């Protein structure tokens, strides 16, 4: 199922919601597939991992999720979002460090060329279910 909602006059907000809505729709696809493999199980919660570099707005995603699941069998199914902060590894001294506010320069050796090792996730981590 791919759903795209695309009407509106407030272009920037609509764009944003549309994007998160199609992400919500992809999440629902995965949930529905998992549900099929566990007949009778009641899914209570969907655990997501979203990195700060993933370009996904939490509020917009939750809004899209609500719109999408309202009055369906998934109505009330909760999203639990784990925010993943950015982490970098220095290309010179291999030091690993948190990089809030785009501080990607190595705090140990000051080399500017670090690589990102966490923070761009957009993953479904787990489902919480009640088995029959």
């Amino acid at each position, binding site marked *: 199922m791919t759903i795209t909602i*695309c009407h509106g006059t407030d272009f920037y907000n609509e764009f*944003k919601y549309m994007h998160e809505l199609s992400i919500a729709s*992809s999440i629902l696809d995965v949930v529905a597939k998992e549900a099929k493999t566990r007949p009778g199980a009641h899914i209570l919660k969907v655990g997501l991992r979203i990195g700060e570099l993933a*370009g996904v707005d939490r509020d917009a995603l939750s809004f899209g999720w609500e719109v999408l699941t309202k009055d369906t069998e998934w109505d009330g199914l909760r999203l639990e979002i784990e925010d993943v902060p950015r982490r970098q590894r220095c290309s010179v001294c291999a030091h690993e460090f948190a990089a809030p506010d*785009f501080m*990607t320069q190595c705090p140990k050796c000051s080399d500017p*060329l670090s690589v990102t090792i966490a923070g761009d996730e*957009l993953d479904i981590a787990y*489902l919480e*279910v009640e088995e029959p």
Partner: protein
Amino acid sequence: MSQIAVEKKVLNENQIVAEKLRELFRQNGIFCFNLISSPGSGKTALLERTLERLPQDSRVAVLTGDLQTENDAIRLSRFGFPVKQIITGGTCHLDARMVEKHLAQWKLEDLNTLIIENVGNLVCPTGYDLGEAFKIVMLSVTEGEDKPLKYPSIFFKSELMILNKIDLLPYVPFDAAKAKENARKVHPGMEILEVSCTTEQGLDEWMRWLEQKRSSVFGR
């Protein structure tokens, strides 16, 4: 109550199609890049300047995405290369399936370069892999120099930032050094080219960059 590990990418379905496209491009020796920017930064203008500089026997094709109209395809088809418009009908980004569908009528063995011009938007196209070798992000000097910080994801994921409209620098309060510094905060070591599609400044470097990247992808 129990927890079941799923551990899947949310955009897994798109990724599967994108990997299929990437393999097709590899088999056919096609160098593909995905050009992304805000509306009005000059993506289509850059592609016009690019196509007019290519020899007529170049085996290049362009897919251009917009919410509505075929205007961009009309602009780009003047250069004699195959161009197809993807009208998304409102969707704010291209996904791998749209690319797959629109490629179906072309013989891939006749091509060696595929240019994808994404829908004008710095947010939504970011997460959608289209099978490209690289994403390229364009910023123009009539925008804010803090855009890399406001929309970090696309600057993080792009191989190159093209700073366009640099002929306007004397007339706008845009700090180009700051913009580059911001881009490299988000993406350490990011490659950056400055161009003007009006005065054609920087376009030779752009064409050289493309050629070098193609060689690095195909090892020739």
